[in-house]
């Protein structure tokens, strides 16, 4: 009757953060900063693109944050954090040398093996670029893994674009097809204007051999999905990463549950067929706030 576990001492650190050192802080926008962190003794985090860590400051609490650097970026790792609440506000006030609690990495990341030899289409909305950047940098480090590499990125306003020097780099590369759009332009904006779905007519896809990785606000998923389906991309070649409230990261606290799955364990990256059967997955029917 009892599935009794053996209580190993290695499990004792389940909720105990490791103290990472903040090496560098870079202001990306008015609300987003990039944090580069190092674990003690040059230890690597050992993450996979699309995974997340639980980030904490003692006294402020803990929150799940996606890794935005690739495993190849070295023993250090990077987090792109938007200032939205108490903890992220405190993180934004930190200076290099500060200690930050880290647990993880947790979750299942992007299935790069399913992308190999295929055309990879990355669709990023707003801060959704942060988790996708871990995938993009991983692919760029092994560019031979995929055939065509397309990146569609949309932000509300030019001032909200993240990682601008990198965007220029991607734009300049011959082996990356990069398209960016903003909902509302400013005076200096010369690029495309419109929501992210307005970029789709600009790209010509070989549907059968395209794999899509999509991260953005919940409202974006439905409309991007319609575009992907219209392009004829097979359902099992469409991947979404989902945001949910999380308290533990290890499949216990219940907050991230979507129907029968725990986003922190079974996700945050899901294939569309896996999500299709979960009626709680993409729909957020309740009014925002």
């Amino acid at each position, binding site marked *: 009757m009892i599935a009794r576990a053996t209580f190993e001492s290695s499990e004792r650190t389940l909720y105990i953060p490791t103290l990472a050192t903040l090496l560098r802080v870079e202001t990306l926008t008015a609300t987003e900063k990039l944090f580069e962190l190092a674990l003690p003794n040059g230890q690597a985090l050992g993450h996979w693109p699309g995974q997340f860590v639980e980030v904490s400051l003692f006294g402020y609490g803990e929150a799940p944050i996606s890794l935005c650097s690739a495993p190849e970026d070295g023993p250090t790792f990077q987090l792109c954090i938007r200032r939205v609440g108490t903890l992220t506000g405190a993180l934004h006030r930190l200076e290099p040398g500060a200690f930050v609690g880290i647990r993880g990495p947790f979750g299942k990341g992007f299935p790069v093996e399913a992308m190999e030899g295929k055309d990879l289409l990355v669709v990023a909305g707003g801060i959704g670029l942060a988790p996708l950047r871990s995938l993009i940098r991983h692919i760029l480090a092994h560019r031979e893994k995929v055939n065509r590499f397309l990146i569609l990125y949309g932000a509300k306003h030019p001032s909200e674009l993240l990682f601008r020097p990198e965007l220029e780099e991607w734009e300049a590369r011959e082996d990356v097809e990069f398209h960016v759009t903003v909902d509302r332009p400013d005076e200096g904006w010369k690029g495309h204007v419109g929501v992210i779905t307005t970029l789709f007519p600009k790209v010509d896809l070989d549907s059968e051999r395209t794999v899509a990785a999509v991260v953005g606000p919940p409202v974006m998923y439905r409309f991007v999905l319609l575009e992907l389906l219209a392009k004829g991309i097979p359902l099992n070649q469409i991947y979404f990463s989902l945001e949910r409230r999380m308290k533990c990261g290890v499949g216990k606290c219940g907050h991230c549950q979507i129907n029968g799955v725990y986003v922190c364990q079974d996700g945050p990256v899901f294939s569309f067929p896996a999500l299709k059967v979960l009626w709680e997955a993409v729909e957020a029917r*309740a009014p925002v706030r």
Partner: protein
Amino acid sequence: MTPVVLEASAVAPFWEQLFQRYRVMGPKEKEPGFYVFDWLSGPGELVLDYVTTILPPKKAFFPPRDVLFRFEQGRNGTPPKVEPIFEQEPFLLVGVHPCDLAGIALLDWAFSQGHVDPHWWARREAATIIGVNCFPDEYCFCTSVGTCRPGGGYDLFLTPIEAGYFVEVGSEKGQRLLEAYAQRRPPEPNDFRDAERFWREKEERISRRLKTPAYALPLLLDASVESPVWERTAQRCYSCGSCTTVCPTCFCFDVVDELTLDLRKGERVRRWDSCQFLDFARVAGGQNFRGERVARTRHRWYRKFYYLMARYGRPFCTGCGRCARACTANIGLVEVLNELAEGGEP
């Protein structure tokens, strides 16, 4: 291991011995008719013929406020100090009913899936559990979910009989307890008959029943996603979280940092949380993935009888009836499932 009989005259000395040697958590009367599991000062406080307790005994292993670690902020560039907290002092948990033994077994499973929860298991392994047979009321429905007779999970289990207690031994630990502290005798045929009668009469008293066999509940729920029953139930529900707070199989929690007044030291604690609360699934950006009450109401049944059941193979419900007893709107877990079984028409 062979059962034994504790004669009526041997019962009090047995408890005396145990209370002298162990910390004991067990049921005691809080107010007339209301019982709670609590640390007991002596055998005089122990009540074994209670109906049910307000909170289930899961709190012995997963307290409502559970310190994960203590911390102290660093000064002048030194790192913060972290001191993990695990409670491992041996204790006895006594007076646990069969349904609550099942609840502990379900949480043993939940706290072992993927990652072993060290705080649950530290206390769990420090505990010796003495179960006791029960006196059901009209809310109990253990016969419908297969938890009426324990399938294990106890070190000793007591059933009242003419002679005193019929004691079943569930582990070496239980056997050692008997050998050290109990004056006992082998059971005679009469004792077996008495014990069996207790079980049977108890089961016959349980009147609340599910109309769906337990194994078919996931199928029932699979077909009931759009049932009007959910909207109707949600209209009565206050989202107060009473049902989940008293549930022996609920284990959702929140994690918060609590600071001392000088802000230098503090504790990271987990506290019981409820999927019925408005903010439970709300993310930092403001989206609330179960912002509608009906979605939260429905989630409770789906979690117990579909999602977790699909993974574990049996309902995540022990039939203890606490949720219905505690519900401020008089919503019955069994009644809702039975309404669904009847097609959801009012």
